């Protein structure tokens, strides 16, 4: 007998009310949450989905700032006095860290002379502190944590450097147009090249490259994107809308391993903009967007009879004028039909021909839907028996419309939505319910999303869904009403390596690092492992100081709210004397980890 992974159907110990619905179609609730009837919940949720709300998460930041004020009161005199007690070895370590930070250039001798003093002053300047030349204990901690604790752990470099620099003056606005995004990207690219060249000529050190780059462009855009999504989830008032937005971000995933970070913001906004349009428009916009073009390497795909191909021949370039079928294949396999539709290699090729000419966005006059027919394969291209011809730029739109209206696409979208919102093995009626509305409305996303709300209420009560790490994280912070690790404020004195991206990475689910083009898994079997469960326990313990003293979260009250007034669980939390244990009994409870 071959043992297979056991998939379980849980007893229905839940019933559907607005609290449970708010977890299935949002991110849960805090102690202050006002209970409403299920009917009202459904009305509100559907209303939320009718139009795209303005995305302005920054207005919430003021709230975070208030919580985070913290002063370093150590005087220069105290700092100088403390320094006297440091051993030579300890001083060497500090010099080493100042060197790694790109400020100290003299010998590591444990002697705090002129060079060290100047390096300390430069470093203090870079973090906008008083330039005393003497390190306070807080500053030493920061220096050690950054350069002592972080290097050598194999982190992405940006994680090591981020909190040394002040982000408060960064331009953290979303690039609302593709032109802004691409121009920003090009500007940053040329600065990188300039610094890299200086490094290659041995004029500056590697550390200096980072320092100078950060000084000028002190933001990491995909960090901003995770941060802002988190802020909007925890403080915003459109949870159901956000759940669908995040669903589609993962449906059309991109990864920082292959896509410039600067493109993320505009890509996410482009997906968001389509939340009240149709699937075909969403599909079209996600496909032509430079982020996706770059992720699935379509940009240089060349039609064998294009003008580009002629030039290759004419100039005898050592290149082959041909297509790259990467994006074309995923467009059929992951975004629309799925292999079950039985398309052929010819269909993939036809799609790839349609896609030639997209993705070359590096010109100065780049605009929405940018297209360059220099590489485009002229003529008609056949996909699923239909020929796409006419104006080169219009072929993709026509193809996207046909693919979106294909019954296999309706089935695929309905299935993905059901798996995400209802169950790893959703009931057939639920899938069909969504599929029918999709077909009737020609993929109108408002109607499809509203159908999901109905399906969750109608079919969801007998099914539980295990929360992916990001969702669990959002549910926890929603419950405690804040406490997000928002390191990018920069001016805060709270130096720990607490940062949303870092925490989500540790929890195993940093959205912008999608391992493969099929996105993060929706299935419990991919998340339910000892290591991942251990991290949830550890994260709650790490959160305790913050939630106990800063947020004054009351586990007893929350347990009553969450589990019910007379529940065994609420009683158990009440009977627990340790604050940490009480919190573990809420946030690591199987009922909290599922919806």
């Amino acid at each position, binding site marked *: 007998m*071959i*043992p*297979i*992974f056991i998939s379980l159907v849980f007893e229905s110990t839940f019933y559907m009310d607005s609290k449970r619905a708010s977890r299935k179609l949002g991110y849960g609730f805090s102690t202050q949450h006002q209970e409403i009837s299920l009917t009202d919940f459904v009305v509100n949720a559907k209303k939320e989905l009718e139009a795209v709300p303005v995305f302005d998460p920054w207005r919430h930041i003021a709230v975070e700032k208030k919580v985070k004020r913290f002063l370093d009161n150590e005087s220069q005199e105290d700092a100088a006095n403390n320094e006297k007690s440091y051993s030579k070895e300890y001083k060497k370590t500090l010099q080493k860290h100042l060197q790694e930070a790109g400020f100290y250039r003299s010998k590591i001798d444990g002697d705090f002379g002129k060079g060290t003093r100047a390096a300390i002053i430069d470093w203090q300047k870079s973090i906008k502190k008083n330039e005393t030349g003497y390190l306070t204990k807080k500053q030493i901690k920061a220096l050690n944590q950054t350069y002592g604790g972080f290097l050598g*752990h*194999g982190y*992405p*470099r*940006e*994680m090591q450097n981020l909190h040394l620099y002040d982000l408060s003056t960064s331009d953290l606005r979303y690039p609302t147009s593709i032109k802004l995004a691409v121009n920003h990207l090009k500007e940053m690219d040329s600065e*990188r090249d300039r610094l890299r060249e200086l490094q290659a000529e041995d004029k500056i050190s590697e550390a200096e490259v980072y320092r100078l780059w950060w000084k000028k462009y002190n933001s990491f855009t995909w960090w901003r994107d995770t941060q802002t999504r988190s802020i909007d989830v925890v403080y915003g008032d459109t949870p159901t809308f956000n759940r669908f937005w995040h669903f589609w971000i993962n449906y059309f995933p991109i990864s*920082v*391993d292959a896509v*410039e970070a600067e493109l993320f913001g505009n890509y996410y906004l482009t997906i968001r903009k389509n939340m009240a349009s149709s699937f075909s428009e969403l599909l079209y916009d996600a496909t032509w967007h430079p982020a996706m073009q*770059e992720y*699935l*390497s379509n940009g*240089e*795909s060349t039609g*064998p009879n294009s003008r580009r191909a002629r030039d290759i021949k004419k100039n005898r370039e*050592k290149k*082959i*004028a*041909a*297509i*790259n*079928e*990467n994006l074309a*294949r995923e467009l059929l*396999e992951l975004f629309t039909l799925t*292999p079950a539709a039985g398309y052929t*290699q010819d269909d993939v090729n036809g799609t790839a021909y349609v896609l030639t000419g997209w993705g070359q966005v*590096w010109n100065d006059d780049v605009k929405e839907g940018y297209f360059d027919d220099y590489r485009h394969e002229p003529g008609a291209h056949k996909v699923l028996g239909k020929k796409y011809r006419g104006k080169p730029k219009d072929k993709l739109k026509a193809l996207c419309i046909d693919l979106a209206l294909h019954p296999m696409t309706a089935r695929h979208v309905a299935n993905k939505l059901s798996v995400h919102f209802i169950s790893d093995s959703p009931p057939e009626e639920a899938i069909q319910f969504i599929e029918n509305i999709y077909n009737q409305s020609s993929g109108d996303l408002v109607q499809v999303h509203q159908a999901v709300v109905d399906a969750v209420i109608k079919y969801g009560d007998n099914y539980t869904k*295990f929360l992916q790490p990001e969702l669990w994280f959002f549910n926890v912070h929603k419950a405690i009403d804040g406490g997000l690790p928002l390191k990018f404020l920069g001016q805060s004195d709270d130096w720990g*390596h607490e940062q949303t991206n*870092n925490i989500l990475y*540790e929890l*195993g689910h940093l959205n912008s690092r999608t391992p*493969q*083009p*099929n996105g993060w*898994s929706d299935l419990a079997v991919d998340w*339910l*492992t*000892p*290591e*991942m*469960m*251990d991290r949830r*326990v*550890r*994260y709650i*313990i*790490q959160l305790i100081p913050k939630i106990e003293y800063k947020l004054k979260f009351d586990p007893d009250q929350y347990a009553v709210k969450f589990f019910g007034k007379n529940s065994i669980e609420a009683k158990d939390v009440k009977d627990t004397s340790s604050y*940490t*244990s009480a919190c*573990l*009994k809420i946030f690591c409870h*199987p009922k909290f*980890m599922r919806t």
Partner: protein
Amino acid sequence: MKRRNFLKGSLGTLYMMASPNMAFPDVNLTEKRMLVVLLRGGLDGLATIPPLGDKHLSKIRKDVLVQGANDLDGFFGIHPNLKFLEKEYQKGNAAFVHATSFPYTGRSHFDGQNIMETGSEQAYAVTSGWVGRAMNAAGFSSLAVSLPIPIILRGNEVNSNYFPTTFAKATKNHYAEVEKMWQSDSQLNGMLKNISSRKMMLPGRGSTQELVSFAAKEMHKPNGPRVGLLEIDGFDTHALQGNEQGDHAELLEDLDNVLKNFKRDMGPLYEDTVIVTVTEFGRTAFENGTRGTDHGWASSMILAGGLVEGKQVVSDWPGLEKRNLFEDRDLKMTIDARDIYAEVVKTVFDLDDDVISEHVFLGYKPEKYHGLLKKS
């Protein structure tokens, strides 16, 4: 145009091990060790072990054509960056198989990876993996040093995983409380059992090299794990694949170094070890329009270690002439990869052919063994 992130982390390398399963102390355990290397994305066999004797190769490839490949047997060559493997081949400790694959021609990563991991002929037909089932049949438990446990290892009764974290460990009492709370939950019950008691320490969040050294050290112990699994991403070289230099060449160099260090750290036990690669498919024989290659069918496979009957390239070469290619574009599969894996599993786990056929490859009976492993 080469556009890459300025600051790029290197993640995506996972690794796991299998130890004798304490639940079955009486099972006849072998002393042999196996390292499975998953090459995700689809390895370009024609760039790794280029068939230098096939005159069509240089006609259908330009930018991705590998120059300076070293000759292996008069027909096949080896990529110049696979220095360690070439030496091992000459010493009789490494062998290659060419024009091999799973019998899957759909060219989808996800279906292809599912098939290479489950060992089934249909994607998503089973939820367990062929290595997991082989370990289970032989009485091993596994520990994956990765976040999700890769499908190829699932199907083992005692699964665990480990990956270094910067979160501080919880106290014994807290683990006990949570464990108690999870006891009545059939999915969560027992999850923390190994976590709270394990002693193993990884050297921080390591590079591939560190992880493999760590793996070798653990596998080196007398009672240590018998199976290791290493995942390497990035073989999906659609654009700017490179040739003897470039992205693909760098990946091969990394792989070569990893295996070299693995050998060093295995010490004398390397004699009882086999390393074998697994990939979802090969790539198109032709170069595409972005100086890369697209999804194809057959690829090449690497076998190394003391257990390997080395210095041979096993192949029934189908040829690169257009009419010999699958659908005019892909290298044809002439050796079913399962035949090779069956031989490896038979040697390492000491399993009967019937057990392998029934449990590991779900009814598939290998056509023949190719003599790639030493007779013990």
